[in-house]
């Protein structure tokens, strides 16, 4: 199964196209696309193959479950998806919303994608064709070597923040 997620804020037409073309090129594989508010409109006049399911919004539990179960997860560069994906060391292909296609107000999703590549080695795509062909490939073995690093950073952050709070709150 392939799971694509556009987050809970906005539709994302180029990711919709990846979902549609990905489902067409892999007719045996179930594809689930979480499209965001208004995100189903793009599919209205298109032939949606039987293996593609589209939902605008998902409850948190189901979203998490699909991210864990999917063979590939394709995600916009939003932290609601990337944080749990990193914590579970899931195979993820990041597809940032870009300002030049008016998918966001600015390019912070591209900045996030670049930072996540530098820090965690996540792969990101800015064009849909390369991403669609990657879906046919098998993900390499999951790499959980960074999980300890994340946990240690959080402990340090929590420790310093706790110290700050205790010194300022009587």
């Amino acid at each position, binding site marked *: 199964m392939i799971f694509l997620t556009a987050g809970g804020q906005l539709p994302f037409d180029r990711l919709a196209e990846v979902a549609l073309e990905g489902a067409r090129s892999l007719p045996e594989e179930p594809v689930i696309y979480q499209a965001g508010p208004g995100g189903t409109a793009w599919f209205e006049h298109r032939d949606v193959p039987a293996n593609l399911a589209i939902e605008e919004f998902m409850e948190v539990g189901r979203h998490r479950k699909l991210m864990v179960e999917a063979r590939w997860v394709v995600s916009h560069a939003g*932290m609601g998806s990337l944080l749990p994906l990193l914590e579970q060391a899931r195979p993820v292909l990041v597809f940032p919303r870009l300002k030049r296609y008016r998918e966001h107000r600015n390019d912070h999703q591209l900045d996030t994608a670049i930072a996540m590549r530098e820090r965690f080695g996540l792969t990101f795509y800015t064009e849909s064709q390369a991403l669609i062909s990657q879906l046919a490939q098998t993900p390499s073995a999951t790499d959980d070597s960074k999980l300890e690093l994340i946990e240690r950073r959080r402990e340090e952050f929590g420790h310093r923040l706790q110290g700050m709070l205790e010194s300022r709150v009587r």
Partner: protein
Amino acid sequence: MRALLVASFGGHLVQLERIAAHLSLGSTVWVTTRPASMDQPHHVITDFNKTTLWRAGRCAVDIQRILRHERCDAAISTGAAPGLLCLAVARLGGSYTVWIDSVANVRRLSLSGRLATWLCHETLTQWPEVAAGHRRVSYLGSVL
């Protein structure tokens, strides 16, 4: 210590949950913008952003309704706009307020974060490079 923890549904809330897991806060009051967003009990307030500023009034009323009954020593938010409004109101009620800018703001502080430098006691970024550019912003660490 009783702490108000407020974050919009999605990535903001996921970050605050991770941070709170590494704090010992005594008791917590969670506030977010959509029902059934998390396992813990939580209040829900009206969402708004800079393009839907007209909903901020309703959000302020929601916040008042919660804070009338909850006295908090500290108030912490990871964003977005409703979190900032919540911290501003909590500060008026005597809370020590901490804004933690989202880890998604890799290169520059969010607009809410820039406002937080004036409205909150502390403004934190999760990227050292961002803190280097602001006198009133500190880096204490990151969820990633």
